[in-house]
């Protein structure tokens, strides 16, 4: 009973916060609500025995990505924003598309049967600790994607510098 209550609390809060985020007029409010949302998602990860991911979720998403958003919003002028229309004129079409996708997915869930089980049973992971077990998979089996991810981060650095740096009058 307790796990179900725990899940239901999180589900309700996550859904409510998502709706709040996309309906705020002021982006700063959205970012702050998103912070709360990410803490709830992190605690859901804890509930799913993914401690390391819960930590990453808070450190990276809440600590890095959202702070970046806040910085950029601060640099931009949002006064003008507060008086403009929130939505595009054709918003009912967008909502209709979304709801039809949702109906389809919900219909599909009933017939969902998950694939064959893997080896990482809860007991085995507990014996080894989650971070170690995850690290083993990440650095041994998934070393190649890991390298590609490092290049993606390099590109993000290069791109951010190229696009945002101030330039001398001569250029280049």
């Amino acid at each position: 009973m307790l796990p179900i209550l725990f899940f239901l609390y999180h589900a309700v809060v996550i859904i409510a916060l998502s709706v709040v985020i996309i309906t705020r007029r002021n982006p700063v409010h959205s970012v702050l609500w998103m912070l709360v949302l990410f803490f709830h998602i992190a605690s859901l990860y804890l509930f799913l025995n993914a401690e390391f991911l819960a930590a990453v979720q808070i450190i990276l998403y809440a600590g890095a990505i959202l702070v970046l958003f806040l910085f950029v919003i601060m640099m931009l002028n949002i006064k003008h924003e507060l008086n403009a229309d929130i939505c595009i004129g054709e918003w009912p079409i967008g909502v209709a598309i979304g709801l039809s996708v949702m109906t389809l997915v919900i219909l599909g869930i009933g017939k969902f049967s998950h694939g064959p089980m893997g080896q990482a049973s809860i007991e085995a992971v507990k014996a080894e600790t989650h971070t170690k077990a995850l690290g083993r998979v990440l650095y041994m089996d998934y070393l190649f994607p890991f390298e590609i991810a490092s290049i993606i981060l390099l590109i993000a650095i290069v791109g951010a510098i190229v696009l945002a740096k101030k330039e001398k009058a001569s250029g280049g």
Partner: protein
Amino acid sequence: MVPLSWYIGLSAIVFVIGMIGFIVRRNIIIMLMSIELMLNSVNISLVAFSHYLQDFRGQVFVIFIITVAAAEAAIGLAILVALFKNKSAVHTDEIMEMKG
């Protein structure tokens, strides 16, 4: 034990909310946040699958998704800053000088 389908349902609902936000809103920053919302819903379902399948692949995938999301946000916001140096408007329809 919470059934797996509840998690899939939760992730589907959050995904669709993010999708509606992306389609309907005009503010670029909110649109970027809607994309983050969609990615988070994918992460929820991947972690849930990973837990129920007792397999680490899903969690590894989540780490990569978070990495890419960070890179994408950084680049998106850098482009936005460059755009703002030239003109100050965050609305998609205001900046769209080219018509669809």
